[in-house]
């Protein structure tokens, strides 16, 4: 793994017995000795600590926040001008065909816009922002900070002794807080469906903060394996699987992330790449949509499994884009795309597994209710 980048906390992961695997150009902990199932369950029951320092952290600066927000609104169909100070929103870069180039988090930090993008897309995203923001904003890539996620029902109780300010935060609030002597940028958000925090911490202070959090008996380290099963049960998209350059936000069921002001009839309607297709689909509906899927047997159906309307014959009608065993659900769960007429909850379709078609039921998302502190 000589060409792979190492996380700032690499030595700590190895010390904890992590199994390291290549992911998005980094050596990443996929699991610790407890294993994916135990790490998943621990996160839902107590708190899990994830190292997501491979993700891209970027600050966008301009004359003032509104100037930056206005420039960035040309790249994402999100209401950024109307985003309150120290509030965060989910969004995505769209392309001219109305597909999704990446999904990201965007936060109004008063004098700048802070964004976090996926590791695998970060170089493209940075280039896209540098080219697309024009004179309205400069792109400052943050290289000297790690990113930790503390997720689970005990996350607040674990973090509060380090800074009681976390108790005042609600879902999608952002704050600059001192944690164990380091200036941290903290948001109350995550990728598990649980309450929790994402913490941008200076690299020099990251190991000490991680160890401090792991010293709490409620906290266990959690790898990429459980991160994936947690987000799948939470019905959250993984870029490159559930959403990609050919998939529109409407097909993906992400219309909620496009605020009314950016839709037809809104004060700043359109003005982002692919607006024609996306706004039309918001009005008229998409031909296919992302759905939750529950295989009726016990065999997991994973990314790539082809879906059919019937048990025999016929052409494929869709495909699974994420799937596996859901440890909290206790059964296989999946997400995929189906034509709108087959997408109603309770509809049975068939997934082809090892040459045999097995029934799969369309299910509401998420599979596990969200546990956010609203």
């Amino acid at each position, binding site marked *: 793994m000589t060409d792979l980048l190492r996380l700032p906390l690499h030595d700590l992961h190895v010390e904890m017995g992590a199994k390291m695997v290549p992911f998005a150009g980094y050596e990443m902990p*996929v*699991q610790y000795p407890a*294993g*994916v*199932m*135990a790490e*998943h369950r621990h996160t839902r029951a107590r708190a899990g600590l994830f190292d997501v320092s491979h993700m891209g952290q970027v600050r966008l600066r301009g004359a003032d926040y509104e100037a930056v927000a206005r420039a960035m609104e040309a790249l994402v169909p999100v209401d950024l001008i109307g985003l309150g100070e120290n509030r965060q929103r989910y969004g995505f870069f769209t392309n001219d065909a109305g597909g999704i180039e990446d999904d990201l988090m965007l936060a109004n930090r008063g004098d700048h816009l802070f964004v976090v993008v996926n590791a695998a897309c970060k170089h493209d995203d940075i280039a896209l922002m540098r080219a697309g923001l024009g004179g309205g904003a400069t792109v400052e890539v943050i290289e000297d900070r790690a990113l930790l996620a503390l997720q689970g029902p005990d996350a607040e109780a674990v973090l509060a002794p380090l800074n009681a300010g976390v108790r005042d935060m609600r879902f999608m609030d952002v704050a600059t807080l001192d944690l164990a002597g380091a200036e941290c940028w903290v948001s109350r958000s995550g990728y598990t469906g649980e309450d929790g925090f994402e913490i941008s911490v200076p690299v020099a202070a990251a190991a000490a903060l991680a160890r401090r959090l792991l010293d709490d008996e409620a906290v266990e380290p959690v790898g990429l*394996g459980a991160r994936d*099963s947690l987000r799948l049960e939470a019905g959250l998209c993984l870029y490159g699987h559930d959403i990609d350059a050919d998939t529109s936000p409407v097909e993906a069921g992400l219309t909620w992330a496009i605020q009314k002001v950016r839709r037809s009839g809104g004060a700043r309607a359109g003005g982002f790449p692919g607006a024609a297709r996306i706004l039309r689909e918001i009005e008229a509906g998409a031909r296919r949509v992302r759905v939750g899927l529950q295989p009726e047997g*016990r*065999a*997991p159906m*994973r990314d790539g499994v082809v879906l059919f309307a019937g048990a025999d014959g016929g052409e494929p009608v869709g495909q699974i884009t994420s799937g*596996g*065993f859901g*440890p909290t659900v206790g059964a*296989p769960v999946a997400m995929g795309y189906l034509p709108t007429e087959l997408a109603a909850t309770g509809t049975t379709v068939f997934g082809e597994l*090892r040459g045999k078609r097995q029934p799969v039921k369309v299910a509401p998302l998420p599979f596990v209710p969200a546990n956010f502190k609203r």
Partner: protein
Amino acid sequence: MKFTEDHEWLRAEGDVVVVGITEHASSQLGDVVFVELPEVGTKVASGDEIVVIESVKAASDIAAPLDGEIVEVNEAIVDEPGKVNEDPLGAWFFKMKIADAAALDAFMDEDAYETFVG
């Protein structure tokens, strides 16, 4: 007990061989969540993929180690796949009747398998 390069353990019971997967294999697979076993009476050839095993991470196959006939399968691991991780040496997968019991001698013994795994 004998071991294959595919990380199966083989235990002879007369002219029947009991087959499971090793501790090493089970820890590499991770938490097992699904097992599909062959039907009793199936005639198999060495190398035939006759078991599907899925962990939280991925699907893999287990091959028949020898030519023979499946005479019994362990339904308990279908009902509780986690047993494969808890007790890999106890959680056998299938029993097969083989024509030539001497064929077992060709496989690794425990010392050789330990060396093989490293």
